[in-house]
């Protein structure tokens, strides 16, 4: 190994900030959008193939969600669930397949422009600005908006009253569940048409998880489509309008939440009996 740009094991905090750098490529420019296909669902990532290196992680997986519905992606570790989310959000270059949102083919857009096109994304970790207050986090969520966003902020506070009380506190000082609420609130500030959540309940207690799921249902009722990856498969499928079971980067089972829960094969293999 002699990567000339590696740090050779240096961990000198007096000259190098230990904060990890960004991983998203901010320099990629968007291509043009094209019209979608008639009869498309509200969002569809169709026949997606691609990965980070030479080997593909996604092998022709298709995910779709209708307006105001909740779609849940479950599957074993390494099935490509988070990668599929990233592909839909444009953080992964697809070799094949396309992503279409609200009647437009947005496959060529970079993540920032997908946010403008109506996507909101909540990463699994590092999803808030820890040394900024809750209010500032929400403001940053609305960074792209040129109009008055105070009403949206009010709606977010109404949705999450717990964080409304802590609007002057730094997000890094909040509990895991509250931080997750701030993260979702931040994504809602752009008034997205589609909200994507990568394991929103990772590392929170069961009570907080139920509370979060309730909020997610509430968000969906306002007409926002939800696409989320979940480890807590049973609970997530209970609230899902449609569920996808991914295995090795491809769809294994698809159905409504209830159908999947009822399928003995799915129960035995993926839901632990």
């Amino acid at each position, binding site marked *: 190994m002699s990567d000339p740009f590696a740090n050779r094991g240096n961990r*000198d905090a*007096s000259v190098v900030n230990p904060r990890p750098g960004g991983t998203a490529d901010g320099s990629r420019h968007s291509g043009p959008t094209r019209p979608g296909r008639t009869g498309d669902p509200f969002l569809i990532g169709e026949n997606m193939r691609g990965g980070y290196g030479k080997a593909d992680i996604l092998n022709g997986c298709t995910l779709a969600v209708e307006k105001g519905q909740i779609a849940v992606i479950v599957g074993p570790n390494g099935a490509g669930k988070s990668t599929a989310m990233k592909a839909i959000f444009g953080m992964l270059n697809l070799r094949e397949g396309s992503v279409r949102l609200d009647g437009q083919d947005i496959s060529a857009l970079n993540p920032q422009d997908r946010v403008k096109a109506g996507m909101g994304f909540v990463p699994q970790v590092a999803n808030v600005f820890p040394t900024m207050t809750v209010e500032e986090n929400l403001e940053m969520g609305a960074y792209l908006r040129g109009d008055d966003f105070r009403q949206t902020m009010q709606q977010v506070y109404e949705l999450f009253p717990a964080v409304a009380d802590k609007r002057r506190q730094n997000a890094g000082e909040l509990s895991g569940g509250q931080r997750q609420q701030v993260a979702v609130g931040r994504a809602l500030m752009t008034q997205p048409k589609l909200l994507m959540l990568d394991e929103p309940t990772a590392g929170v207690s069961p009570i907080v998880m139920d509370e979060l799921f309730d909020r997610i249902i509430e968000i969906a009722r306002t007409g926002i489509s939800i696409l989320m990856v979940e480890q807590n498969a049973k609970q997530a499928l209970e609230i899902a309008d449609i569920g996808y079971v991914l295995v090795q980067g491809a769809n294994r089972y698809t159905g409504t939440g209830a159908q999947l829960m009822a399928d003995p094969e799915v129960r035995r293999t993926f839901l632990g009996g």
Partner: protein
Amino acid sequence: MSTNRQAETSASPWRAPLLFAVVILLIVLEGTVSNAMFSGSWNSALSILNMGLISAVTALGVNMIWGYGGLFNAGVVGFVALGGLAPVLVSTQPVPGAWAAGGPQLVLALAAGLATLVIAVTAAARMKGVGRLPVVVLILIAGYVVTRMLFDPAVTAIEANNPSKAGNIGGLGLPVLLSWPVGMVFAAIAAWGIGKVALGLRSDYLAIATLGIGEIIVAILKNEGWLARGVLNITGVPRPVPYELALQSNPAFVEAAARWAMDPATASAIYVKLCYAAVFVAVVLILILLSELALYSPWGRMMRAIRDNETAAEAMGKDVTRRHLHLFIIGCAVIGLSGAMMVTLDGLMAPGGYNPLRYTFLVWVMVIVGGSGNNWGAVLGAVLIWFLWIKAEVWGPAGMSLLTSPLSDGPLRQHLIESAPQMRFVAMGLVLLLVLRFAPRGLLPER
């Protein structure tokens, strides 16, 4: 992404010999061709070579620390200066009366200072709770006062002893080659102290700590007259090779010089420089041999494992901090050796000359340009950069007068030509930036 980077072209086996040939050619040109670029003087060429070889030793030390350990030493100058103290203390002649004036008390004072530190560290380690910090601070203050009370009169007495010619504690009068390992030990002790403090568990503070200790060591050498006369300089450090005057009065040598059609003065100067060069080349080769042997021993494999994947190495149970400390001490010892060699070559200890740009950051340029992690690269980079550093001072004004020739002779042109020797700083910066950008592994990439 990292796969693309590693897929870069592997270096040709001829690359190293070819580049070394280029450097040797430059030295030979400097020795033989006399024009605007080269002086045509073997004296000058060998001076550059000798200092280049000493820089190579410094660069080898830095390369061990950075190339193998990924540690950033920003105070190389301090360790060079500390190593340079060894020839003064070991091999200059004793100063009559100096020891009697205040030697024992001085030793007592230094012992008191050391004891204070030991007691403070022990207290800090043993004690717990709120009382710890005040107690440690009290111990330090009390120890400092006691040390100063012993130290100040002793220093005054020593410095009052024959102040115009000596005023320092003096040396032991031992052979100068013996002082080289002593210089290594001096630097190693300082490195141990600083490494113990600055190399932490999860992250370290080595860069700022070494930057500080480097400045402090130089400040001590400049201001502690009893130690090495401070800015008054120590001259006449003995040599491991013959003196020019002795050679010139040796009939056999004069005869041999005449056979080469050289006057004895030039011949003796060149002969002395060649002797030095032979010693220095031997040192460089031994260092490379030892370090390559170490690198391919189990110890070296472990070091590389730590460097390439610290997390994995730590998980395997290797104590990374300890290994880093070892590497830092060894590297600094080598840097100290180069300091001792330099004072021996110059026959002079001049603390005012220890400039961090020259002795810390220029050495970094040498290591990066040569190729981080490659010993031969460090040597190549050192000699090449040293050559450029010296010659740029000459080429700068020449180039500037050429560049400004369209300008009329005015104060502006005058100013530009006069300050053109400063161009070498710009040139060195550009060399570093260009290498880092277009050949980030350096001229001789690590294998």
